């Protein structure tokens, strides 16, 4: 197992370096000179040359890349053009909001999709299977931003039940401890704050989780259907194990591997989906930061956020691979 982990880590390092190279090349290829962009219109040619020297823009490209890479490895993603703050700090402040949203979305997706998928897979062509298929199709076809807007229209606009934007009502959450508002409220015993946080996160999390729910439901259904025909299921039935126990102990446990894999694979879609959902609900996460950075052409902030998201995705994939190997002993490590 350890050898497997080490081999996977070693395989990931070149990928990370190539990702940074790709992002760097993208910035290089972008039209327009950053120096022109940063200086005012009145800057003389001398000012521009001066600024280019100061930012290292007069150096050969590979020297610039080397500087970029070594700085990034030390956690220095540059300074925001617009806010003059370190990019990494800005992202770190916003990250808990994004993670909290993603976690709640996954919980909603799993809690609805897995039981529904198991039922549907155990009774193909029954009414529950038809309902499940409908839910699955709905989930994979629904654009999250439109679903979000419609939720706002109904829940906030017409029924006036839930707040349409933000993470909390000003002043209720109090000082952050972990930055995860729901967790902070529980730690502090701030039940009003917890309720407020849940009310704010409900709609964005549903909008973000629907897509994963659809895919998860379809995968759970098909993997349960597959496992139902395995010999050990027949054996369990022959032993006289009750149908319910067969389903939940023998079938679901074995259907779990594809389910976990899909959750892992779909985390990437969830990450990029959060960028859009955060925009719809003015959710103060790192996705919203990226979009506002794009609007204000804040290149270091754009690069930093893109790199952070991609690194997060690489780490998630890596973790899922390890988990996957750990759950299913049939996967051989010594290939």
């Amino acid at each position, binding site marked *: 197992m350890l050898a497997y982990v080490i081999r996977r880590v070693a395989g990931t390092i070149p990928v990370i370096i190539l990702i940074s190279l790709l992002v760097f090349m993208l910035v290089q290829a972008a039209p327009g000179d950053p120096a022109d962009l940063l200086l005012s219109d009145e800057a003389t040619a001398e000012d521009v040359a001066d600024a280019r020297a100061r930012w290292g823009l007069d150096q050969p490209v590979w020297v610039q890349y080397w500087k970029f890479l070594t700085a990034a490895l030390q956690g220095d993603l540059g300074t925001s053009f617009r806010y003059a703050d370190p990019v990494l700090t800005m992202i770190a402040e916003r990250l808990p909001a994004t993670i909290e949203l993603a976690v709640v979305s996954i919980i909603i997706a799993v809690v609805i999709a897995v039981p529904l998928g198991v039922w549907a897979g155990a009774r193909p062509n029954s009414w529950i299977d038809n309902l499940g298929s409908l839910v699955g*199709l709905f989930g994979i076809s629904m654009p999250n931003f439109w679903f979000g807007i419609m939720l*706002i229209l109904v829940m906030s606009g017409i029924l006036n039940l839930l707040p349409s934007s933000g993470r909390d009502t000003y002043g209720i959450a109090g000082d952050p401890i972990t930055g995860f508002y729901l967790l902070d409220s529980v730690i502090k015993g701030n039940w009003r704050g917890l309720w407020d946080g849940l009310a704010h996160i409900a709609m964005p999390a549903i909008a973000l989780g629907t897509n994963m729910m659809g895919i998860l439901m379809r995968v759970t259904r098909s993997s349960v259907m597959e496992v139902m025909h395995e010999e050990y299921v027949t054996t369990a039935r022959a032993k006289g194990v009750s149908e319910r126990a067969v389903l939940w102990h023998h079938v679901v446990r074995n259907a779990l591997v594809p389910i976990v894999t899909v959750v892992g694979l779909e985390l990437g879609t969830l990450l990029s989906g959060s960028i859009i959902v955060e925009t719809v609900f003015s959710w103060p996460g790192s996705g919203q930061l990226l979009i506002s950075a*794009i609007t204000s052409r804040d290149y270091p902030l754009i690069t930093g956020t893109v790199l952070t998201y991609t690194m997060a995705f690489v780490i998630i994939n890596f973790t899922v691979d390890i988990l996957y190997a750990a759950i299913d002993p049939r996967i051989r490590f010594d290939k």
Partner: protein
Amino acid sequence: MTSSTISPEAAVAVPTLGTERASRIPKVLRPWLKPKIIAGGSIVALLVVMGLLAPAISPFDPNKQNLLSAMQAPQWLAGPHVLGTDHVGRDILSRIFYGARISLVIAVTVVVISGAVGVGLGAISGYFAGKIDFMIQKLVEVIWAFPPLLLAIAIMAFFGQGLGILIVALVAQRWIPYCRVARGQALSLRTRDFVDAARSLGARDGRIIVKHILPNLMQAAMVIGTFAMATAIISEASLSFLGLGVPPHIPTWGGMLADGRAYISTAWWLALFPGLCIFFTVLGINLLGDGMRDIFDPRLKRSGQGMG
């Protein structure tokens, strides 16, 4: 297949058409007559008609602003503005028709280009194996390491709006699923007898790939391509919604949604109709893809998800 009185082909068509009519339909078409394919196909056909005929069927110029008639609620069959007008008085129905065009153009172009690039590189990667395979697969790994859509967002952020760059941005990552599946299949095809036979007859690698490998990759590519249309349409709408798509003077469903979001509390029709269009289009394509997958190969589902 359940009844002994009808042939297997007819049995497939029974649920939708009945034996009498099914017998008049050519055999090759019968497997395609499934509710999923008919429903999905009709929706897609409607989209194509809407897009192609947009200039002829649109009651108004989609970009014609008229502040005097701004924010009118849907008038349905009664009024000139069937689905109402937006915040600057543009006719929603006309914009939806024209929006279908851009969705269609993007979906088809992105799918065709990424399919060609992906299947081509996948075939080369799998057929030659070794060093070429290693290099192509490294590239696949790096590009696939970006969360979906993020690479497109980054490209649009640095290069600005435009139809050409939007297509490049979407293709940048969407060729990967084809490449993975095509490579897997090419790896197994290269050891098959008919490839050995062609080689022993003196065929060159290029000819073998074009004549013997590529035709065998087409079915899988078609299934992936169908689902990829849905992804392309949602991606285009997402980027337009974020203001990172085509220039604002071209009506798009995503762009209409972005406008509608600002007026959601006062004018629901701005966001409802373009969103419904995106939803039903994607639903139709997914139904069609499900149906096609059932016909071609139920096992494709696994490989299509790019697990390996």
